[in-house]
């Protein structure tokens, strides 16, 4: 019996799995329509952008860093796309790639500052959080840009569900493969566990960090493009608050902020938990106040549960030794 429990607890994602299961059951019991495929599809679509950003953040947090600028990068890439595709009539594909490039540049700035100048990640990304958002406002002069015509492939109806969900699925798969099956992923985790040890064992820590932050920047850019197309508008405010939600999802999923321990499966479970929570709160007609309250509480509860999981493992293991 104890072995089964221990096996379950040792799954990194067990804490979030429990929370997710409880919330889903609660929601399903109150609203049976929730489990219909069309409902689930809509919900999944709503969280595609967050999923993509959360995957990037998982990689960054795995190295022991953090990136609070992702929301602002979503905003500035949204505006970039709007200005290039709509106002300057650029080829939509080139405009999109440029927008992704802008995301990558901000990511690279973060990565360079962390790896070469060795500034603390939270400070660097605080600076880019501020600067990127400011740039979004400056470039757009505070005004939204409406996508009034058809803009090539950007107006393809596949953008409603197929493309975003595909991107979300691809990022999840890609993130999982990177973390679990590649030497790059192992290097990420090693860097997070101990930068010094990683360096001594020959890992190019700087390059790893640069890569992690740049990837996250590009993913944030992708989320920016997706958000823009979803509402057919570029807004400088796009992505505001995404960093909070993304970090919440990642940490809920069992990825450790200290680095060295990460789970993409945990991250998607974290995103799913938040989706279900919000859906449930909307259903009960909760006020913005209550939603805010619950989001904060669920984050703290999830982390407490994970701590509990770890201490339970220790206690059960100690019992084993005594036998």
């Amino acid at each position, binding site marked *: 019996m104890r072995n089964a429990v221990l096996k379950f607890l040792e799954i990194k994602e067990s804490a979030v799995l429990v929370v997710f299961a409880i919330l889903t059951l609660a929601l399903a019991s109150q609203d049976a329509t929730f489990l219909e495929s069309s409902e689930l599809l809509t919900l999944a679509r709503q969280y595609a952008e967050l999923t993509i950003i959360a995957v990037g953040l998982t990689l960054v947090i795995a190295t022991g860093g953090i990136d609070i600028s992702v929301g602002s990068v979503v905003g500035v890439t949204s505006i970039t796309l709007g200005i290039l595709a709509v106002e300057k009539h650029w080829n939509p594909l080139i405009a999109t790639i440029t927008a992704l490039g802008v995301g990558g540049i901000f990511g690279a700035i973060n990565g360079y500052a962390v790896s070469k100048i060795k500034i603390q990640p939270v400070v660097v990304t605080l600076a880019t959080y501020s600067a990127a958002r*400011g740039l979004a406002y400056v470039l757009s*002069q505070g005004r939204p840009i409406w996508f009034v015509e058809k803009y090539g492939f950007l107006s393809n109806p596949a953008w409603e569900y197929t493309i975003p969900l595909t991107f979300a699925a691809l990022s999840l798969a890609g993130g999982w493969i990177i973390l679990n099956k590649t030497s790059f992923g192992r290097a990420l985790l090693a860097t997070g566990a101990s930068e010094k040890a990683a360096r001594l064992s020959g890992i190019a820590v700087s390059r790893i960090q640069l890569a992690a932050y740049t990837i996250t920047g590009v993913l944030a850019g992708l989320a920016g493009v997706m958000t823009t197309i979803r509402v057919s508008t570029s807004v400088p405010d796009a992505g505001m608050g995404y960093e909070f939600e993304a970090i919440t999802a990642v*940490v809920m999923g069992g990825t450790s*902020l*200290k680095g060295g321990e990460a789970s993409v499966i945990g991250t998607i479970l974290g995103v799913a938990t938040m989706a279900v929570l919000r859906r449930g709160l909307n259903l009960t007609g909760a006020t913005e106040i209550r939603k805010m309250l619950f989001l904060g509480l669920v984050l703290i509860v999830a982390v*407490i549960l994970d701590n509990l999981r770890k201490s339970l493992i220790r206690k059960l293991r100690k019992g084993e030794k005594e036998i």
Partner: protein
Amino acid sequence: MSKRPTIQIPKELPVFLFLMSMSIVLTITRPQFLNPANVEGMGRDLSMVGIMALGMTAVIITGGIDLSVASILALSAGLGAEAMVKGLSVPIAVMITLAAGTVCGLINGVLVTKIKIPPIIVTLGTMSIFQASALYFTNSESLGPLPDSLGVLTSGTNPIIILAIITMIFWMMFAKTKSGRRLYAVGGNEEAARLSGISVDRVKIYAYMLAGLTASMGGLMMASNTLRIQANDAMGYELNVIAAAVIGGVSISGGVGSALGAVLGGMVTIVLRNGLVLLQMPEQWTNVIIGAAIFAAAAFDRLRSRREDS
């Protein structure tokens, strides 16, 4: 073997020089910078960010961070305003505000130390919870007009005097008292501090309580300025406070920081903002410039540490 004399450059010198050069450039290009009205306006804004940066510095010195200060401001000032609007005297309402802020800080401290959650996560969570509470207790309404006597906090040169007094208190605490030394000890090397008998938990809780207290003070300054307050007024303000602290030289890894630095950092952000207004640049440039300032301050600090290491 000859020893190279080591010159101790005060940590705050670069910030101070930057501040001075900015101010001189501004005075030359826009003389209105030194207008009494402009200076008083900057003084009011400075008192708010400066006081809060002092508390934030205490937390960051211990190796933590507090993202919830803006929400603590909203909750504590909101409760105080409710009290005033319901007829309680201003002094009592002020007490309520300060107490509420300190209690919020206590909650943060307990969560960080006893339940062992990383500070960034705790305060991310409490940021939401405190903000939600602020909206709840004030019914999401704009409260006011608040009693005129509250305005005394931000009239004339009072805000600067208040800031100066609180800065001196923090300076003495950081530099001359046991509690202050313990903040640096815990931030510098937590294990060593613990082994030398310091109650690390208590020190951290103390730091978060200071952050909460100064956040409530910031709320009082804000409420006093316009004699009106609404729960969402200070949203996002935590970044101004953290920016001020970082520009002022506090190190996120802990163990380094000063009261003077915190206030100088605050001054830099205020002068930058004011400068942009005087130069008639669109307000949105503020965030870009502040971001660049944070970056520059942090990079400069790293450069200096590296030189000292060699």
